[in-house]
């Protein structure tokens, strides 16, 4: 078994454990937070028969652990339960919404990578003035709340200029893209600034590293030094941060979704929480956690592939 396989298996194990623990936290916390009967009755006074029926249907009389187990095993088999509010399988609620969020996140990721990593590279390589300018811009970017950016974008580009739609998801590839541009920008601003800083920081660290001195004294062309020795060596760190950032976007997208009236899983979570739709809250939370953990693990693994030495412990020659 080689190092990589070992690492993969190790991370996989840790990931599963984290997921199981997180699912317990979510399940029990959600139970604490809402009264299923109230939510299920849907706003009308529940009769004793209705209460009885609900208790039976949702196994409310079983001990918590047994309910958790049923829920978890169900979820693993793709049975995510039924929404209290819509009375439909949660999967049919989450499924279509997940697509929107995924597309929004992908577009945002694209923006983050292009502008975040791009400006980080410029800041690290194009001298003091560019560096200062970008530093000022990222400072501002990191101070701009997502929803303020959203409001500004709506005001300027949708309301005043009318270039972009303000609401909804659109149909078809281009229309969808057109609808997602502003939300993606509003979501990306903060993270562009963050990724830009991390990129700059790790590039500068590599630029000042001793092995780059070696390459310089050997007369290796600048372009190659940057590509092969600086950027590639900095990439695991950039990737790790980007991975965490991207993983977090799925939850952060709630703000952009609400601001732009997109029906994604973030807005579903907020909505479901307001309506005490516990199965939906549980599954969406679990989904967000799973995405987060899996994406982080993937970023870790890619880092490990780029930099195998980060995997092993001590070194023997």
């Amino acid at each position, binding site marked *: 078994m080689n190092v990589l396989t070992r690492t993969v298996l190790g991370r996989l194990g840790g990931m599963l454990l984290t997921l199981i623990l997180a699912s317990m936290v979510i399940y029990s916390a959600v139970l604490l937070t809402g009264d299923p009967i109230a939510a299920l009755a849907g706003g009308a*006074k529940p009769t004793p028969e209705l209460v009885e029926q609900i208790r039976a249907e949702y196994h409310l009389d079983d001990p918590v652990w047994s309910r958790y187990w049923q829920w978890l095993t169900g979820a693993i088999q793709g049975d995510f339960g039924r929404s209290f509010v819509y*009375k439909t399988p949660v999967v049919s609620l989450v499924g279509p919404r997940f697509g929107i969020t995924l597309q929004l996140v992908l577009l945002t990721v694209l923006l983050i990578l292009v502008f975040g990593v791009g400006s980080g590279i410029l800041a690290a390589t194009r001298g003091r003035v560019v560096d200062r300018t970008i530093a000022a811009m990222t400072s501002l970017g990191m101070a701009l709340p997502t929803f303020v950016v959203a409001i500004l974008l709506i005001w300027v580009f949708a309301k005043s200029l009318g270039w972009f739609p303000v609401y909804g*998801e659109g149909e078809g590839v281009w229309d969808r893209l057109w609808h997602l541009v502003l939300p993606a920008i509003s979501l990306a601003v903060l993270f562009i600034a963050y990724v830009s800083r991390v990129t700059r920081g790790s590039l500068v660290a590599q630029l000042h590293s001793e092995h780059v001195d070696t390459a310089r004294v050997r007369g290796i062309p600048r372009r190659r030094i940057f590509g092969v020795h600086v950027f590639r060596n900095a990439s695991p760190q950039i990737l790790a941060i980007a991975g965490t950032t991207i993983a977090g976007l799925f939850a952060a997208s709630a703000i952009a979704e609400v601001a732009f*009236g997109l*029906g994604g899983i973030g807005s579903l979570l907020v909505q479901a929480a307001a309506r005490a739709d516990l199965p939906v809250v549980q599954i969406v939370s679990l989904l967000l956690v799973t995405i987060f953990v899996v994406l982080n693990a993937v970023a870790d693994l890619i880092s490990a592939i780029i930099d195998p030495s980060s995997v092993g412990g001590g070194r023997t020659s």
Partner: protein
Amino acid sequence: MKRTALAAGAVAGAALLALTACTPRDADDADVVGDDFEIVDAQPAGTQAVDEVTWAIVEGEPATLNPAASANLIIPNLCDNLLSLQPDFSIEPGVAERAEFVDPVTFVITLRDDVTFWDGSPVTADDVVYSLQQNTNPASQWYGAFALVDPDPTAGIAATGPNEVTVRFIAPDSTFRDALAGQGGAVMQKAFGEANGAAVGTPDAGLMCTGPFELQDGGWTPGSEIVTIANEDYWNGAPLVGTLTYTFVSDGSTLATALTQGEIDGAINVSPGSRAVFEGDGAGSLTVGHSTASYSFGPASATSAAANPKIRQALNLAIDRDQYLETVVNGLGYVQKTIVPEFSFHSMEASGTYQEGYDALAEPEVDLEAATALVEESGEDVSRPLVVAVPSGAKEFQQTAAIIQSAGKQIGLDIRIDEMQASDFGALFYDPSKREGVDFVATQGYLETPGVLGYPSLFMLPPEMGGIFNWSGYENPEVTEHLLAARNATDPETAAREFTAAQEVFAPDMLQVTLAGTYQLTYLSDELTGVTTSIAAYSSPWALHLGGK
């Protein structure tokens, strides 16, 4: 007797509930009421066919489309009620050609013979019996209207001919016919209902009704939209719109932008807060229609100072209604003197009597001195803050709460605001434990069918007689007696006199401090017309005549 009262209680309860939990919208410049808008209850019918119309539902996505379980603006276009509610709140025959009491306790419904469900099968008496029986279950939204129906299933509602259904009562009920113009009279297919059970109205199972628009299999994508298509065989003429798609936009400013940019064709119940935006340059325009909706607040506890009528009267005297209208509904509202709005009896037979009773009531006025005196007189300990609960997220309620708070401060009442999540706020109405620590509840309610007894029964009768919202323990034998007599009256005039007698007594007690009556606001693309723009939209197929100009 007891049963009668209980029954009387519930007529509009469900509607009020549905309402308060969802959220209405409001306005801006108000001292110009009436000056710069006219009130229109129905736009001229459309003349051009339109392929597709996108409609925004501001209350958010409904949990179900089952008429027995939900009140929203989508169902009226899908499911016909037995009687047809007109934009001016009068009632005409509908699927039922005739529906009358033949004696004080026997009500006979005669059906048209040309009405078919979407699948082409004719509507039979059995379908109607099935549909009406949905509401004899206390879980139904409309149970209150059926409370006096003979509970024996075979005797109560029965098919007495191929096109005839007979309903028998245990006591006379002056409100039943009006209720059939609402979703309590919605017609559903029995076979479909029995096949799908509790799933009726959900995205999975869908519906089988007779309305002008048809919900197809998979037409409802939960979380995103509901697509309905024209029912070409509609008994009252096919609609002009081929596909009517509903989307859900609960954020007022997003909706305002989307509507004025023309991304969405129209919406009912748009926020009066965005009046300036709607009246500015945009893809459409705002239509103001009559409504039964009003903002009010009332006591939530029998033990707090809020239960003392003097405290409520004091607050009533401290709130400037004109300022309220200007702030909360941007002038798109009017001063309403009591809980029962004028439009609810506007087209009733004895409307003159009702109007006289209403006109006799005192206009709300501001008198801080008198108010402060009332607080002192009340003998209540006002050092403890009073908590007013409002649903969260709606600007109108935040403003309402702030205004109540500010008014309280002027007369020495310390008022705290508790914004509640929709689900918690909804639970206030049936779970007493949720009301602990709450002194006042501020709500907006409307009546979706004509009739005046709904609110008074819910708020002023003793709880065991149906006053399920009578949380302050209000009990006035005179009021109780008159209200019961009104419901059991067999002729409209008697009912009207009994009601006004009760109103004369209960109105000054301010079981609900009515803050303002509001209008129904509809925004529609300038290329379209034909929408029902009064509150009747909740109970009638408002998009039937929607079409191009």
